[in-house]
């Protein structure tokens, strides 16, 4: 076990290193940070000077090395744009994103799982078909469009919900949360929905597909033969047997959502990491991007570790034998 963890840890480090390497190989193609940092009138000489000071003229490898050496000390440098410690910036934005992602994933599951089970049980039912279709429309429209439409309808026309931002937030030991204030909760609704739609569709369809298989197995038949309660058969026995792929996807989705809520955050001006990141990309803010990618990589490593653990938790057949 100890061995298992340490092994995973070493692997994680490797992952991070590689991510950093690729990241740095990539930054060249994003553009020239200096142009983004100075006014248009700034002279060529000044720009070159700046470029030199930032070490942008060094080879990728050198820059990469420098970054690693710093990262090893958990220093991620100063943002070009904000002239502020990247770690601080990200720490500031992290809560917003995490709250949004978690809420939306929970939403997706809370709606998706029952829907999935239902559509599987009433395979050819009218309502089931409607669910399936509607959920599809949800995914075939781009996020930004959905977001804007929601804003237009609930924000502008009905004026029920705020159109942008996070509303009032309370700061609990450096963690800002919008979950405790009414305006914060209101502000959360639209972005969460926008973000949830895609995963919801995925969950619904996955669960449906898997349920259809499991419901035909002999052990479900035997559960029926024992006269178990229908709910127990569907959820305790059948659903549990569909979980492995679902866990996988949900895990990935959670990661993806945390990482790339970019569009949603932009549309709703949600002050999260995604927004920070997309701005960093447009302004080639290398320190932010580098640190951010590392963070994301860490997220994924952890999430996937958990997912793998869950496999074992869910399916005894996978547990170590002899």
């Amino acid at each position: 076990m100890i061995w298992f963890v340490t092994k995973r840890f070493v692997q994680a480090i490797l992952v991070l290193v590689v991510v950093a390497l690729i990241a740095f190989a990539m930054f060249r193609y994003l553009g020239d940070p200096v142009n983004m940092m100075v006014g248009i009138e700034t002279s060529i000489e000044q720009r070159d000077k700046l470029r030199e000071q930032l070490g942008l003229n060094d080879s990728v490898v050198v820059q990469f090395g420098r970054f690693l050496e710093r990262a090893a000390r958990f220093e991620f440098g100063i943002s070009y744009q904000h002239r502020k410690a990247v770690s601080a910036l990200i720490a500031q934005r992290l809560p917003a994103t995490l709250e949004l992602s978690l809420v939306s994933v929970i939403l997706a599951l809370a709606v998706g799982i029952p829907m999935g089970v239902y559509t599987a049980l009433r395979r050819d039912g009218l309502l089931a078909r409607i669910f399936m279709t509607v959920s599809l429309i949800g995914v075939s429209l781009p996020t930004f469009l959905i977001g804007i439409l929601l804003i237009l309808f609930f924000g502008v026309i009905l004026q029920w919900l705020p159109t942008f931002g996070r509303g009032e937030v309370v700061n609990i030991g450096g963690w800002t949360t919008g979950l405790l204030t009414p305006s914060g909760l209101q502000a959360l609704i639209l972005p969460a929905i926008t973000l949830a739609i895609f995963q919801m569709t995925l969950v619904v369809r996955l669960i449906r597909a898997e349920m259809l298989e499991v419901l035909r197995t002999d052990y479900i038949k035997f559960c029926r033969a024992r006269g178990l309660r229908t709910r127990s058969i569907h959820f305790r026995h059948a659903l549990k047997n569909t979980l492995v792929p679902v866990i996988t996807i949900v895990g990935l989705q959670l990661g993806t959502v945390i990482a790339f809520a970019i569009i949603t955050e932009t549309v709703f001006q949600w002050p999260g990491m995604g927004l920070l990141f997309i701005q960093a990309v447009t302004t080639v803010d290398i320190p932010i991007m580098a640190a951010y990618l590392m963070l994301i990589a860490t997220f994924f490593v952890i999430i996937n570790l958990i997912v793998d653990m869950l496999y074992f938790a869910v399916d005894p057949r996978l547990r170590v034998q002899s």
Partner: protein
Amino acid sequence: MTASTRQITPVLEVRGLTVEFPSRRGLVTAARDVNLAVAAGEILGVVGESGAGKSTIGNAVMGLLDPPGHISAGEVLLEGERIDTLGAQAMRRIRGRRVAMIFQDPLTSLDPLQTVGDQIVETIVTHLDMSEPKARSRAVELLGQVGIPAPETRVDQYPHQFSGGMRQRVVIALSLCAEPDVIIADEPTTALDVSIQAQILSLLRRLVRDHGVGMILITHDMGVIADVTDRVTVMYRGRVVEEGPTRKILGDPDHTYTRSLISAVPRPDRRFDRFPLVEYIEAASSATRKIDIRTHWLGRVRDFGPAREGGGPLLEARGLRLRFSTRWSLMPSKRRYVQAVDDVAFEIAPGEVFGLVGESGSGKSTIARIVTGLYRPQAGSVLFAGQDLTALGSRRAVNRYRRQMQMIFQDPFSSLNPRMRVRDIVAEPIRFHRLTEAQSETRGIVDDLLEHVGLGESAGKKYPHEFSGGQRQRISIARALATRPRFLICDEPTSALDVSIQAQILNLLKDLQEELGLTMLFISHDLPVIRQMCDRVAVMREGKIVETAPTERLFDTPQHEYSRHLLDLMPRLDIVKRSPDVAPA
């Protein structure tokens, strides 16, 4: 129990039941106009050819026919009122509580993700108002009653950690736990060794007698029928051909099918060179004309590469050990293991049929898996034609030998890929080992094989789930034979087969053995069959071989007391008026 103990009003009655499985390839009528009745405190035996519709009737009564199957005529009455028309909820309350069913396929009947304990407890709590802990202790008790060793630890284990027979017993426990009024037991003892079988049967008998439970016992084991049933219904091709008190049916049956069926029951007391066949056939078919191996495709000899003949044993097992962890934990001290195979050694000479009997859970299947290389033994080695397989590193090298072995799996339900057509399942080894030149030839051979195991070539187009237990078992036999192996491992090959098909298949195996020197490791708990088939037999218990002896000697003078115990428990059909002791041709 005699006819006198019978009440008048049947607790469960089936009237004119007809069950159909419509499919695009035509309509399968699994049961036609079937009438059955079982009274409280009575055991009704149902025998009949494999695929005759026995399980179907069970399912129909429970209202659990797999779609598209449905009852197209007739009715099912429980204590006088119809239940086949009941709504889902009402039916739910009846299932398990009033009518319970023991399914034929124990290995796939258990939810793989729940411990057997949880499954039992849930069932109890659903039907009887009993507290969790009480239900739990009841569960342990039940497991004990059905003869699971160390139930209090086993109760927390998952199905895959149980042996075939053990799972079957779990299934039985599950069906009994809600104290139903009627039990439909579909081949409840197929995978059980005689001692456990005896234990289970007496348990069932007790239930019936003491609690006035009515029971329908589907089986193909005439011994069991003779032992426990009050009345017998004989089915053939979805129809009831004969019905009556057990003595009468077994003693002097009216219907020719019944008669020939009984005459075909393998004899425990004497050895014949062939199994007596069932002459009664409605539609003529290939299986009857005994195939001439020398000319038949199966007979064409394959060269098995470098095989060191020279007298030595073909297969040799040395000091095999394998234990499974049943509870894994951080601290090695906390881990629990089952010593499934404990220092097992045996030799099998070329052309020999080596029998392996022993109590359920004693490690037979595990040995089979070790030999085929599915499990790595923790100690010991397997030598095939003098070559140590466990030592061989490269997969390719192992394959050269593995190719020469085939295995018939104990569980016909899970060992067939649900997504492949039967035709492809059987053809796969042929295609893979390039045993034929042309596709057409392969097809021909496959259809032929299917015929020999008693399935029409139309079976090829279907998927495994469309078949009855016995039919599936035959499919896996056909698959095993398809490679024309040199060494065949049969793990309970005929456990789900009625005597007629059994005879037919075992004869085929015998032919192969005699004509081609096919070597076999033959695992079975059916002692008569063992006696007919095997040259030497090893008796297993708790992972150890307790006695190995030539068959005849074992049956005449068993040394180890466990062997003796087994032989004593062997069910007999003394009541049957034996036809003169000559082997039917």
